[in-house]
């Protein structure tokens, strides 16, 4: 019973933290766009939090560059359990056009365990909402 209540609460109140680990800004602004009037993810209970300590879902955009690998890991460690990682955009999924660059390590999956991949360059707010809804279904 308690389990079911807790699971319900987790589904209804996912707080997100956004980190750009080397992306071009496109997915970042589409993610922010999802918060604004036309898409308004707050109706799903999604809030964008300022501190990793408050977050449930880490949304990563962009490929992981050499320099942002350590900050990314630090942020991930600061998020309390249970936590999920969403790789937003083609770059975060695989590295996209930057995959063979000398300063890029590849997609987010090589640094963190990823629960959800959202392809698209950049992915549209609709795709972001649908991916988050899918992820919440699985919690």
């Amino acid at each position: 019973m308690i389990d079911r209540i807790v699971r319900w609460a987790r589904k209804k109140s996912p707080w997100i933290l956004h980190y750009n680990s080397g992306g071009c800004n496109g997915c970042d602004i589409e993610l922010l766009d999802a918060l604004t009037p036309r898409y308004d993810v707050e109706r799903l209970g999604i809030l964008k939090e300022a501190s990793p300590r408050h977050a449930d879902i880490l949304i990563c955009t962009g490929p992981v560059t050499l320099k942002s690998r350590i900050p990314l890991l630090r942020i991930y460690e600061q998020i309390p359990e249970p936590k999920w990682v969403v790789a937003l955009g083609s770059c975060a999924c695989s590295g996209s056009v930057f995959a063979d660059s000398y300063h890029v390590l590849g997609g987010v999956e090589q640094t963190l365990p990823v629960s959800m991949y959202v392809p698209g360059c950049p992915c549209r707010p609709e795709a972001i909402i649908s991916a988050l809804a899918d992820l919440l279904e699985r919690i």
Partner: protein
Amino acid sequence: MPEITLPVGPQHPLIKEPISILLDLQGEYVTSARVEIGYVHRGLEQLLQRRSYTQGVAVVERICGICSHAHTTAYCQAVELLLGLEIPDRAQAIRALLCELERLHSHLLWLGVLAEAIGFTTIFMYAWREREQILDVMEMISGGRIAHGANVIGGVREDLSPDQVEATEDRLTKLQQQLSVFTDLVDRDKSFHQRTHGIGLLPLELVYAYGVVGPMARASGATLDVRRAAPYGAYRHLEVPAAISSEADVWARAWTRVQEMSHSIALCKEIIRHLPEGDLALRVPRRIAPAKAVSRVEAPRGELLYYVESDGGEMPARVHVRTPTLPTLLVMEKMLPGLQTGDIAAVVAGADLCMACADR
């Protein structure tokens, strides 16, 4: 009070992109600031040397998600200069139209981010709601909201049908009416003034010494605007009004950008009303004889410079990109000391940083 160091970034709610600003604080006041970048460095200049000229367009488009079209325009223009090509008038007009639309969306985005930084979430929401109109128009024209893929070397890929022209004009008229919300905000709103007036001063001498460009420089009284100083493409036939302020603070930057938004709407209308007929793109060879070219474009954030060198092969020998955010970041170290911690957000957001551009 003892001196403490306040780290802003790499992850910080204020800036959507990673950058690290280390601030030394004495009580509530900043005594010194150090800016560290490179978190988003993807080695693009080297990457471009390993892509053909055509593939390069797709790569430069992904340098920055906000001013993607300015990047492709500058790159294509440079390659066309290498070839000595003059692209068709219609292609030039469509390029310029998308450039101006992009400026509108970038400025609205910026206004929203600034409003959020000073705790004015309502304006953030309103600005981004209006921004959707621009994204709709751009999606209608090119098929992409953020990355358009509209430019190709030798011209553009997308045409504008008469229906689209009409729809664009409709949206722009609507937006023009909505813009009064933001002009009122900048001109009259007291709490907006309280938070933006007199902070983040950037004297004209610093603008020149640090090579600051774009609206940031124009808010301090500088006049450099590539569209006016060295007209390129369709701008050769257009009259671009200047929005120059001498207040040099965050408020002036907001004022400059709001002015530029209404100028951009007027320019867009001018372009679509006199859309020349003609081809969309020229055929270009795969190999380019050895040559060098510099192309300057006025991106939403200011002068964007591309240097492209060819060596006779299918790929460029060297591409160098100088983005407008770089000097702005450099001058941050001079602007932040002396501020209260409460004003840091407004000044940093007001500088319109684009880390993806700066780091490449």
